[in-house]
């Protein structure tokens, strides 16, 4: 029996989000909150490993109360249990403070049921760093394995896992002791439609909800904004490329103009020409 915990986050759908051009802040009401797409793959992988080896899949999130919805989505995918830590004290956390809070939650979950494997998404679409996973692993002092694109074997009896880790030009096969933490690539699996029983279970499911006071041995100075070494000093709209010239004339004229522009960069094409 494996106990696998996936770390998941509810995020605003950055595809649809509107920015307030005056303040450069997100208009959160403009974007629906969704389960971070990468984390869906983390949960799916955990569910697949459960199917392969038997076990229990839990998910954990740190977030505001509405994040219960993201947990329910994970139940639909096939998770068994959901844990949420929610508290004002967590607000404003950067990756270091986030990994600290999640580590405290994971320690508590591990007391309920020892954890064999933690799976994170590659990154969140709002934080967009991929740093939280390895951060948790370091804090728990277990091996972090990032860019995992395939799980070859989980061998609980002998205490090891074998995975493929994606590289820029291929992959490496890594063996690690258990427990360990994976950050998984999105191409590790495809997420099928959720079976009806899961949907029904999700609709009724109530996650375990903890505040800071429910966690043990928490150093509050390491939480939230206070515990975050990084701060955002300013934000501004991304610079649009200069130029933005709409070419004019007949299609033929436009194409000529474009080639003329491109030929100012002819060194880029020279390799081809010189072959």
């Amino acid at each position: 029996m494996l106990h696998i915990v996936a770390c998941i986050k509810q995020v605003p759908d950055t595809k649809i989000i509107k920015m307030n051009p005056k303040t450069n802040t997100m208009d959160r009401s403009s974007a629906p909150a969704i389960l971070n797409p990468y984390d869906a793959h983390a949960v799916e992988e955990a569910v697949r490993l459960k199917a392969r080896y038997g076990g229990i899949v839990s998910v954990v999130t740190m977030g505001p109360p509405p994040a219960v919805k993201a947990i329910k989505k994970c139940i639909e995918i096939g998770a068994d249990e959901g844990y949420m830590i929610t508290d004002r004290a967590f607000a404003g956390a950067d990756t270091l403070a986030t990994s600290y809070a999640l580590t405290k939650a994971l320690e508590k979950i591990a007391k309920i049921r020892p954890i064999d494997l933690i799976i994170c998404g590659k990154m969140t679409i709002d934080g967009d760093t991929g740093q939280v996973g390895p951060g948790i692993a370091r804090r728990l002092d277990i091996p972090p394995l990032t860019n995992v694109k395939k799980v070859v074997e989980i061998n609980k009896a002998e205490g090891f896992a074998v995975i493929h880790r994606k590289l820029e030009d291929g992959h490496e096969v890594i063996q690690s002791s258990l427990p360990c933490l994976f950050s998984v690539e999105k191409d590790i699996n495809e997420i099928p439609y959720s079976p009806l029983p899961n949907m029904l279970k999700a609709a009724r499911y109530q996650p375990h909800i903890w505040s800071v006071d429910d966690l043990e041995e928490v150093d509050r100075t390491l939480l939230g904004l206070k515990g975050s070494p990084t701060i955002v000093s300013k934000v501004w709209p991304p610079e649009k490329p200069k130029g933005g010239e709409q070419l004019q004339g007949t299609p033929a004229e436009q194409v000529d103009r474009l080639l003329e522009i491109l030929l100012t960069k002819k060194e880029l094409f020279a390799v081809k020409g010189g072959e």
Partner: protein
Amino acid sequence: MAIQDHRGVWVFLERKEDTIAPVSLELLGAGRKLADKRGVPLGGIVIGHKVKPLAQIAVEYGADVVYVYDDPIFENYRTESFMKAVIHACEKHKPEIFLYGATSTGKDLASAVATDLETGLTADTTMLDVDSETGLLEASRPAFGGNIMATILCKKHRPQMATVRPKVMKALDPEKKRRGEVIVETLKVKEEDLRTKVLEIVRDTTKKVKIDEADIIVAGGKGLGSKEGFDILHRFASVIGATVGASRDAVEAGWIDHHHQVGQTGVTVTPKIYFAIGISGAIQHLVGMQNSGLIIAINKDPEAPIFQACHYGIVGDAFEIVPMLMEAFQNALDKEVQYGGKI
């Protein structure tokens, strides 16, 4: 430890085959500027087995001092062994700023090191500056799916760390005559203290698409209508020596493999020229290519957002424009070859 005890700008020198990865050379270029502005030395750290010759390359590209960890235990990258070396060096020499390439290795290593050193780490930076008085690093990056740019500071912790996207910074021209100091460090890491082993490294030589290394990308989107529609793109690309890229919708339609996908959930690319053909220019696509040198859009819809994000745009039908463009290109290249007298 007091913040003012920290000094110097450092770059993690990632190894690629038998040399230094291009991104690390770019960071030496960027780091040089920061170090000069702050009036401190530029350091590099290289970890591996038989990697000492790489130190000299780093010097030629701008480093004043290179710390070398050379031991068979460092033969392959492993988070646990490499982080021990980096932390050892940081504790001993106390750099003020530490930059890593935003590669799978760089991001993995930096995330682990930052946690252990309990310091701040800014991910996927695209702009760097430093306050010459305070040494405060201003690391800027696209955030919220590219909807905004944000500048991140780390005021109270050192070293200030950042991963930096490949192909954004510029490497200096190497100077053979440049002199620097090479310091060989010793750190005993025992195999039995490491919990991971690299069993095998599989280099994917069949995979021709290295879209993030391409200088020219011809990317197509849903506007191309079908797999056959993409053929024209492949032909155009082969004519101009470009690599084919794609929007997510084209990938999901099954017209092209996902290795080609550019954008937030695909690859981030910064080619010198980027053609967006039949791509609307959704923000998730833009974040993956907006730092390209020259962006050219071809789209039927004059209102398509891609025209706001491009340098030059042609409103027109790709199936009319591209063949014309292709033919013109072929002509131009033939002419170059003639003048070049290479054949």
